């Protein structure tokens, strides 16, 4: 191959070209270099040409395929060659791109696609340089690149930095200095635990002058239980976790033990390959433990329906499609959804590949119609009582008690007393007993007494009572009589009261045991595999070719030929060392967690349409580190947060903001608004309200009334929101009950997704509705009041000291004199205002369910509450900087 001529590209041109295409970041500025096919050319071809000249053979026009070298340089139907390496003049593609004749021009005007002059220039250069083709970068296994040589090795703390600094040097940029210690302890504590550091933790770190003080801090945080909660939070979005079915009635369902399993797994540093295999196929592992089966909840988090009239087969297909797509996005960074209907237009995955993957999820014991049930099978019991048979025994006790009641009812002979009809129905008259006495003595009297309001009665009893007694069927008559005898009749209390007591006690024991041993949805295959077909255009009722489960061979070689055709084989293929995607996709998401943007910005798409990595060699290095360390997750987190890159100051100079507004080159530390849950958890932590219990059933903290009623089906068991009390109001936000058709508004306002489908990259908006939440949501107003009390209680006597305490709690740092002055001014004005209006103060203090200490003057406390309200609204408080 002739050596390519080297051209100099003005950076502006390359930048414009790349941005216009996929938003990819240019590799090297100003330096002489040759055109890189994967980075510079493929995105243009993929975006503008592959639709008709790409992998999808059904859509291919003129027999031209531009995604492979053979296709691009081969003879066309017309006899020409689209690309003649080394000669743009002899390449039909170049002629077509530059033509002004609408019949000849490519892409055709009606396609809505266009290729800019700069892009055409790049293509010309690339062809003239020999038109080199490479496979798409992410389908080539990662290499363990040695860290780049750099001019200032002292700036590096670990190999990560050498990759980052090397690129900065190429760009003529300098890394930023290390952050001050206060910023650092705040940043890393927020990142690893989702909570701000306490003042004690800040002080301890400031006081620790040992050279490895920071590493010690990181190790402490990685060992804290809150680390697992913080890592789980991201994973819940990916797994589309919710506490309701998500479709139609959107009833509650029980899958939170899976959420708790995630927390335990992250905290115990379960190797990632095992973590992945258990979620995808824990049920198929030999002698699967309960935990391994709970893990398969990953594939049961999808939305399901029980809507009357829905067609089973249609939803059977939808669920399997969702599971394939989610698996593809979460572990492989592939957008497999395209292949439901046709071959992928950009990546080498065929529709048949898709349905082979579908096959792994196609033979479940699950019924497509979930019956709106709390535990649509397959589900298992977890916890201490799961194995021992204790639950069954207790259920037996309840059943026995119920049956004793039924037996007693059957044996009981009820005789209506002979009373004057007038007295019975009106309860008046001289000789009549008192009405309440009468109603427990006479069925008729009781019936009359409940005629107006039957709301407290069981439905079947109320319904039977609607019918005039002489028209009731014998069954309805019995329903009424039995209810009366069992619950009302004075003459049978001595029989039924003890029976009820016995049954209630049995139920209580069962409830307690069940609370200790919650059930959760899991995966389970049918003994016999279902036949799987390619579905024509993705339609559930248009079966095409029959296929067997299998993996897309273009991504990575299949496992042994004799591997079983089940999810376990898929899971093992996903974490196999030869799979080029999984480790990259995972470390990229970890990176995104810390820096706000992944090395590949499109964390959900590593295919041809995804963005080119800013630091490809670093990504590969991290991926191979992860694999070679035995998929040690905590080790990777530690590597990232102990890098000098992570520890840089996040101050943004005007020049740097202009040069790299998104901070993709990392010449400064990360700074961005915290995720929804962190914003709320911070307010709870700062105010001292936070309850740090780990795990358990989801909770319902404050939310404005009427939200569920406004949208819910009246028959749904989540149509009415019943707010919890006490500790449940102050749990971490990852435990907030997630109703998917109306998710918690204070969290979605800060970009939490609805969890109806898999999300691996959240948006990060900045809106007036967020301001309203932080200013006015009961949760935040209450937190401000508690923070105010804390300032008064713990902050000392002077106003300035109290302000300093609150400010430190919220932002981790000491306020400046100027800042204290601003708060003082506000405090003075608010004190005066509340002194004039004591009622207003009392009202403000009444917000939220936690009590306030009566020893404080209400006006003073209210004024401090407004000061605290500012503190919780500071940009700095809601930002990780």
């Amino acid at each position, binding site marked *: 191959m002739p050596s390519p001529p080297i051209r100099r590209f003005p950076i502006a041109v390359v930048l414009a070209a790349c941005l216009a295409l996929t938003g990819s970041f240019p590799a090297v500025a100003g330096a002489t270099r040759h055109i890189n096919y994967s980075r510079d050319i493929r995105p243009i071809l993929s975006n503008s040409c592959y639709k008709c000249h790409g992998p999808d053979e059904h859509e291919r026009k003129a027999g031209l395929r531009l995604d492979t070298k053979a296709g691009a340089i081969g003879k066309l139907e017309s006899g020409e060659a689209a690309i003649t390496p080394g000669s743009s003049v002899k390449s039909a593609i170049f002629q077509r791109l530059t033509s002004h004749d609408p019949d000849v021009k490519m892409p055709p005007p009606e396609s809505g696609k266009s290729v800019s002059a700069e892009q055409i220039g790049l293509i010309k250069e690339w062809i003239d340089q020999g038109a080199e083709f490479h496979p798409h970068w992410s389908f080539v296994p990662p290499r363990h690149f040695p860290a780049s040589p750099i001019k200032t090795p002292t700036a590096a703390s670990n190999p990560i930095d050498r990759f980052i600094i090397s690129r900065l040097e190429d760009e003529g940029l300098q890394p930023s200095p290390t952050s001050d210690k206060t910023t650092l302890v705040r940043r890393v504590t927020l990142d690893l635990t989702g909570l701000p550091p306490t003042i004690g933790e800040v002080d301890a770190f400031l006081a620790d002058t040992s050279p490895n003080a920071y590493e010690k801090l990181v190790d402490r945080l990685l060992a804290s239980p809150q680390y697992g909660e913080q890592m789980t939070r991201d994973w819940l979005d990916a797994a589309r976790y919710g506490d309701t079915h998500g479709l139609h009635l959107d009833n509650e369902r029980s899958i939170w033990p899976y959420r708790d399993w995630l927390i335990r797994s992250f905290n115990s540093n379960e190797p990632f390959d095992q973590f992945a295999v258990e979620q995808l196929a824990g049920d198929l592992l030999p002698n699967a433990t309960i935990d391994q089966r709970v893990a398969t909840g990953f594939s049961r988090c999808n939305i399901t329906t029980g809507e009357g009239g829905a067609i089973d087969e249609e939803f059977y297909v939808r669920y399997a499609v969702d599971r394939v797509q989610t698996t593809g996005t979460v572990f492989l960074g592939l957008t497999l959804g395209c292949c439901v209907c046709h071959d992928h237009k950009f990546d080498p995955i065929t529709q048949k590949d898709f349905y082979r993957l579908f096959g792994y999820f196609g033979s479940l014991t699950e019924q497509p119609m979930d019956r709106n049930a709390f535990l649509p099978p397959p589900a298992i019991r977890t916890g201490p009582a799961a194995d021992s048979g204790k639950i069954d025994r207790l259920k037996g006790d309840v059943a026995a008690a119920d049956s004793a009641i039924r037996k007693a009812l059957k044996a009981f002979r009820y005789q209506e007393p002979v009373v004057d009809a007038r007295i019975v129905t009106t309860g008046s008259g001289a000789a009549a007993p008192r009405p309440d006495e009468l109603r427990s003595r006479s069925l008729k009297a009781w019936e009359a007494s409940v005629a107006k309001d039957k709301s407290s009665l069981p439905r079947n009893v109320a319904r039977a009572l609607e019918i005039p007694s002489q028209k009731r069927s014998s069954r309805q008559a019995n329903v009424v009589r039995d209810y009366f005898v069992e619950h009302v009749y004075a003459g049978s209390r001595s029989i039924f009261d003890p029976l009820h007591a016995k049954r209630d006690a049995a139920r209580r024991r069962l409830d307690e045991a069940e609370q200790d041993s919650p059930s959760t949805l899991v995966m389970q295959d049918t003994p016999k595999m279902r036949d799987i077909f390619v579905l024509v255009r993705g339609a559930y009722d248009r079966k095409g070719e029959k296929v067997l489960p299998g993996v897309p061979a273009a991504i990575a070689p299949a496992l042994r030929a004799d591997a079983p055709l089940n999810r376990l084989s898929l899971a093992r293929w996903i974490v196999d060392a030869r799979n080029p995607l999984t480790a990259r996709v995972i470390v990229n998401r970890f990176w995104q967690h810390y820096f706000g943007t992944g090395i590949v910005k499109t964390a959900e798409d590593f295919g041809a349409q995804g963005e080119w990595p800013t630091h490809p060699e670093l990504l590969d290095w991290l991926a191979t580190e992860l694999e070679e360390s035995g998929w040690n997750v905590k080790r990777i987190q530690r590597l990232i947060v102990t890098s000098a890159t992570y520890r840089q100051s996040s101050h943004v100079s005007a020049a740097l903001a202009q040069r790299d507004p998104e901070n993709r080159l990392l010449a400064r530390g990360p700074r961005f608004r915290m995720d929804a849950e962190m914003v709320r958890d911070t307010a709870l932590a700062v105010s001292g309200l936070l309850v740090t219990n780990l795990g358990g059933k989801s909770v319902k903290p404050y939310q404005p009334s009427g939200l569920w009623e406004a949208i819910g089906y009246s028959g749904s068991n989540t149509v009415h929101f019943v707010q919890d009390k006490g500790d449940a109001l102050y749990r971490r936000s990852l435990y907030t009950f997630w109703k998917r*058709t109306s998710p918690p508004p204070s969290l979605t306002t800060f970009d939490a997704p609805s969890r109806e489908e898999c999300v691996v990259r959240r948006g990060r908006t900045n809106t007036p509705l967020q301001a309203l939440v932080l200013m006015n949501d009961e949760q935040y107003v209450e937190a401000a009041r508690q923070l105010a009390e804390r300032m008064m209680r713990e902050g000392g006597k002077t106003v300035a000291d109290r302000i300093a305490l609150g400010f430190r709690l919220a932002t981790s740092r000491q306020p400046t004199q100027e800042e204290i002055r601003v708060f003082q001014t506000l405090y003075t004005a608010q004190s005066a205002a509340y002194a004039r209006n004591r009622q207003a103060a009392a009202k403000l203090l009444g917000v939220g369910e936690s009590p306030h200490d009566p020893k404080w003057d209400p006006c003073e406390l209210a004024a401090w509450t407004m000061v605290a309200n500012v503190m919780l609204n*500071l940009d700095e408080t809601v930002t990780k900087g």
Partner: protein
Amino acid sequence: MNPVREQIERLTRRYFFGRTATGIGTVALASLLDDRVMGGLTAEPSVGGVLGRPQIRATAKRVIYLSMNGAPSQLETFDYKPKLTELFDSDLPDSVRMGQRITTMTSGQKRLPIAPSVFKFGRHGQGGAWVSELLPHTAKIVDDLAILRSVNTDAINHDPACTFVFTGAQQPGRPSMGAWVSYGLGSLNGNLPTFVVLHSTWSSKRDAQAVFSRLWGSGFLPSKYQGVALRSSGDPVLYLSNPPGVDSDSRRRMLDALAELNQKELATVGDPEINTRIAQYEMAYRMQTSVPELTNLSTEPKHILDMYGPDVHIPGTVASNCLLARRLAERDVRFIQIFQRGWDHHGNLPTDMRLQCRDIDQPCAALVKDLKQRGMLDDTLVIWGGEFGRTVYCQGNLTREDYGRDHHPRCFSMWMAGGGVKPGIVYGETDDFSYNIVRDPVHVHDLNATVLHCLGINHERLTYRFQGRDFRLTDVHGNVVRGLLA
């Protein structure tokens, strides 16, 4: 978001703030949200839309979508089928059904007996459009409406069908129509959300199909494009009101302190995002005034209130929401979506239809008239309809007076008015059974393409790159229905 656009927005914002960073809060903020600041980027005086100048001539600036959730029967409203009277209780001919799928609610029935409508129809307006007696007020405005009798959809159950109508896909995850419009065209009003949703009460049986926040959600678009529900009780916008004991003066003082502190932080760390946050707090403060002003209907004169009917005095009714929609439209809110539930009539249809139609007839007609008398119908597109139609055959027991109808995705009726839609026409036709379309079908994708067209958007060009693919409201389908355009 389109990366180039994203870049430009960032740069512009920074440029703007770079010049005003010395000034405190309010002045700078007021003008950030002023239409003109970013006016150079778009032909229209709007803020934040990704589309530059309109791709096609826009005939509508805003949309009011009256969504009748649960699927009103076309056979009781606009699709008059006189021949059915003689066919009472006879079986739906196989030649009509042609083996089409039916839901599992009626697929088990032994028979599919024809249920003629119990309601009378009359011809109205200059074009003599057939309208049922249930809609006397609507009948009076048919000359302003384009009645569509040939709308059809892919979905046969409520959840997927609603999701399909509003997002172009049956599966959750895509942006809603209003979000697409906000994303494409941006805001015309700096004091109110661009996309507003109103939920209404209903009069038929309490069991009504649900709606889902995804119907006004932003899907994979940035969440700022999602619809904001204006509520009829409690805060009209969530968290709008100051807490008890905090008056507007206190809030102002709090915000001044906050802005000053955030400015100091900006001076120290230089992150332009801080400036945006300061601006958003000011917008929130302005909303605290502008929203209550908007929702206060007491300033409306009596003759206007009377137009909408007696329910207008009850917050949350369709009547009250229709008037609110007009007020939102006057304030140039882009996309207004009114939901009313209670239209799923599998049984007891005649009784429930009477109740539901009474809820909506006068207010919807009044809305059109009111817009017209203000000259606003010219650039406001009003749409009325449900998520699918109902079957000509009866579900459950059939009598002359009482019957039910199952889901029918193959044809249903809607109407559109204003915003460049041809007035006084009836578009499309179904067979004698209102089962199949025989002329001018309008698929949901076609309808949505037409709505975008009226707004000056080429539905094939308003796209968003997500997971490597350019998504759009109409997926890969949809044709603008030229016959509906004036």
